């Protein structure tokens, strides 16, 4: 399946999905390779284990292969695929009770961390994010890294807009408690991040 290069990513995705719905394996492979990087980054918020990330991505594309015919353009292809990955990952996450990210910030109400000394901001933030409930952590990732709108996140996570707002609100509040410098006083941190 060769999609003309002049097409936008959205048009290209739609054309590939149409081809997949007719049983075109090459179109599936093209779509897979174009989504692998962003899905891997997104899913690494669930788990740091590569084999789990890989398994969830492949499970996602098995569903894409099987359900391409049912896609009705009610949303963007990207929203649809990320939504499948989100639900697949949640199922996987709930199966693995010993997941390292399963702890919530509520388990550590008194702890706060600031980036001092040689602590890298990214490691420090990663540690803070890992203390959030998975739904809140992913809402932050969907908005702040993947750039999805409120409505798109509601579609991806299959929940009302109000729920997305509430998850984001709680995530912000918990980060404010856990990472006071990053979430509150600017101090010299913005310079370090910038």
């Amino acid at each position, binding site marked *: 399946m060769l999609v003309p290069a002049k097409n936008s990513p959205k048009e290209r995705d739609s054309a590939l999905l149409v081809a*997949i*719905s007719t*049983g075109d*394996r090459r179109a*599936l*492979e093209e779509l*897979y*390779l174009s989504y*692998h*990087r962003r899905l*891997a*980054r997104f899913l*690494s918020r669930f788990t740091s284990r*590569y084999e789990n*990330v*890989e398994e969830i*991505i*492949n499970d996602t*594309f*098995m569903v894409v*292969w*099987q*359900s*391409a*015919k049912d896609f009705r353009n009610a949303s963007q292809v990207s929203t649809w695929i990320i939504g499948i990955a989100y639900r697949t990952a949640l199922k996987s996450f709930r199966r693995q009770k010993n997941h390292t990210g399963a702890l919530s910030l509520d388990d550590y109400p008194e702890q706060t961390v600031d980036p001092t000394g040689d602590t890298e*901001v*990214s490691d420090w*933030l*990663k540690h803070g*994010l890992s203390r959030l409930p998975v739904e809140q952590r992913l809402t*932050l*990732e969907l*908005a*702040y*890294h993947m*750039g*999805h*709108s*409120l409505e*798109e996140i509601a579609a991806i996570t299959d929940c009302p807009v109000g729920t997305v*707002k509430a998850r*984001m*609100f709680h995530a*912000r509040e918990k*980060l*404010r408690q856990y990472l006071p410098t*990053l*979430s*509150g006083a*600017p101090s010299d*941190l*913005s310079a370090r*991040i*910038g």
Partner: protein
Amino acid sequence: MTHDRRIENSAEHHEVSELLPWYVNETLAERDRQRVDAHVGVCASCREDLAAQRRICQAIDAQPAVDYMPVASLKKLQARLDAQAESGGSLAPPKEQAANRLPWRGWMAASIAAMAVAVALLAADRWAQVEARRTQPNYRTVTSSAPRPQGEVIRAVFSPTITLVELQTILDEAQLRIVSGPTEAGVYSLASNSTLTVRASLALLRQHSTVRFAEGTSPEPASGNSP
């Protein structure tokens, strides 16, 4: 109550505060964006929060992506699809595969039924042997021949690797049924299920490579043209 406190307690403040992350990632509709602009202009708390959210967004976005190996993962997906296509008999996506699975399920059901029939036949045969032993003397003279199962017309030996399903298919085709066996030597006694001649049944049996031996147990009736 101060002016700032009144603003922070207003419904507008709470609603705008909830929208700040999407103001930061620039996905708000124009009307909501203007609403946030207007409120942030008069609310110090939201200005602080907005600055904090921008720092968090920047920090999250700046986190290095883990570089996985897409081609290696893709090969695993391809292997799964190949396996699915082989079991479903089609490369087509699921709905078609679902349809293709139906005959496969039917074949499975037929296989199970055939196995059940074979097991029942073997059990019946075993029971018949026990009954025969009970009613017959447990010795044989040198001049007497081994008792033949009732209705036996053919004795056959099949390949040891033959499955029950394959065996039943061959017997159905030759219109035969098992009346006894297998013996320790692997010999089955077969009876006719129809008016098909023994010669015809033998010919049908012998065309299969899994039939190692097949012979009639009584001489074929003489042909009408024979003198």
